């Protein structure tokens, strides 16, 4: 009897510990909604998300929605900022290391024609092929906030 109680106790503690992590939840495409624009998230090549240090999940259908949302957020409180890798649909990569491309050849859900690449090489290649401007995370946020 005592053993079972102890086991339940251990399991409960484990559960509490698990539910406290600030790891990003996977986006459920077709089911989740963009926190910023309320649209359903369906586009695996343009989705984005961030997680606060308390573990609260925010998901977005496009990178421009994420950037617009983050304008009013304290950067200290964020554990993860992720954007979809255009060259590998479905993969989410840290925004800080990604390269961003604004090009009219690649349309994004909210009309800014903005997409992200894991490798800067790919972004540059695409920008040469289709015309466009490559940004880093820092220059991108600056560009959007000045708009």
């Amino acid at each position, binding site marked *: 009897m005592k053993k079972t109680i102890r086991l339940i106790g251990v399991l409960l503690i484990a559960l509490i510990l698990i539910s406290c992590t600030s790891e990003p939840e996977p986006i459920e*495409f*077709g089911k989740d*909604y963009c926190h910023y624009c*309320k*649209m359903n998230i*369906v586009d695996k*090549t343009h989705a984005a998300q961030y997680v606060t240090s308390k573990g609260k999940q925010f998901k977005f259908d496009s990178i421009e929605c994420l950037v617009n949302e983050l304008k009013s957020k304290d950067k200290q409180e964020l554990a993860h900022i992720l954007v979809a890798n255009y060259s590998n649909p479905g993969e989410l990569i840290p925004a800080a290391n990604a390269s961003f491309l604004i090009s009219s050849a690649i349309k994004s859900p909210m*009309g800014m024609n903005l997409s992200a690449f894991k490798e800067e090489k790919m972004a540059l290649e695409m920008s040469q092929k289709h015309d466009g401007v490559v940004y880093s995370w820092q220059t991108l946020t600056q560009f959007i906030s000045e708009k």
Partner: protein
Amino acid sequence: MRIRLFLICIYLLILVTNCYAKLFFVGANESLHSIQEAINLAQNGDTVIIRNGIYKEHDLFLSKSIHLIGEKNALIDGEKFSGILVSETSNFSISGLSFTNIGVSYTSDLAAIKVSKSTDFIIEDCRLENVFFGILIEKSKRGSIRNNHVSSVRINEASSGNGIHIWSGDDMEVHDNELFGLRDGIYFEFVKNSRVYSNFSHDNLRYGLHFMFSNSNLYHHNTFNNNGSGVAVMFSKFITMHDNTFQFNWGSASYGLLLKEIYDAEIYSNTFEQNTIGINAEGSTRINYRNNRFIRNGWAVKIAGACYANNFSKNDFMSNSFDVAYNSKENDNSFDKNYWTDYSGYDLDKNGIGDIPYRPVKLFSFIVNNSPEALVLLRSLFVELVNFSEKVTPVFTPSHLMDTNPLMRKIND
């Protein structure tokens, strides 16, 4: 005299059709076996008739003003290679053809029929199955897309395309189409002065109909059933929506109609039935809602920030869990002469208008707005008490948000 004139007309007509418009037949028993061959031979004004049969062709290119007519069961199978037909011309028509198996790509928008930089065209009575994008139109004017059937199988959400997608268009007409199993049934991006009517858009992943940056459009008599969400109208001005039906859009945050950054719209005589949220409005200003019916929705109307000068009158709010949800204490919207099934007032002077005002925002809906988990308490005694006390002395809900002339009977059928 009259008969003679008539005969001359007939004669001229025969002359014209004989001399100018040639007919080309494509089929297994005809001299031409491939559609592209026939298109290459045809001149402006000619007609290509495609006989019953299966044609394994893709990347057909149409650059002349010709008419493609499919006989019954004339099917073009793209074998998942790429798109099937690309058209860049004016004065052409495509009718009665079937298309199937369009290639899927993340990087290019492959479509069964792609129309680019074209004017004055008709796409009618076509059947498009297993498509990525169905009909994709860009930078075009004066097109009519009618009576088509567009469908796909939505196995992988992200690899789905839209049924009828118009990007940058003017004076387009989309009517009597059926669309299902797609990402968005119909998607308008930068489209103006266009009409969408009598379509049936159902079981799509995202929206039945989607407007983005599209001004001065009209949509009416459409039915939107069972989509991820019914219709989204975003960043657009002067949109008129009437006599549409929005049904069965269930999901954690699904809605019949999403309005986001919309100005000067008219919304009348629509039916919103059994949606999680009937209308979800955010940043919408100067909108008139009248004669709509809201039946058995979770929330009939949810109003988030920055909605000004909206006017609700003569609507029926029937058996919704929440009539109106509001997330701020400010109110700049008016409610007048609506019918509310939850209204429990009286009408002593028998003029059909209740003698005490109705407050559509309940305290509990305000609480749920702030912490959605509280929803489990719905229909409990505690919640009824909370709602009652707020009704008597409003503290949290906007105090002047009320219908001063609530109707005693419903008005719309």
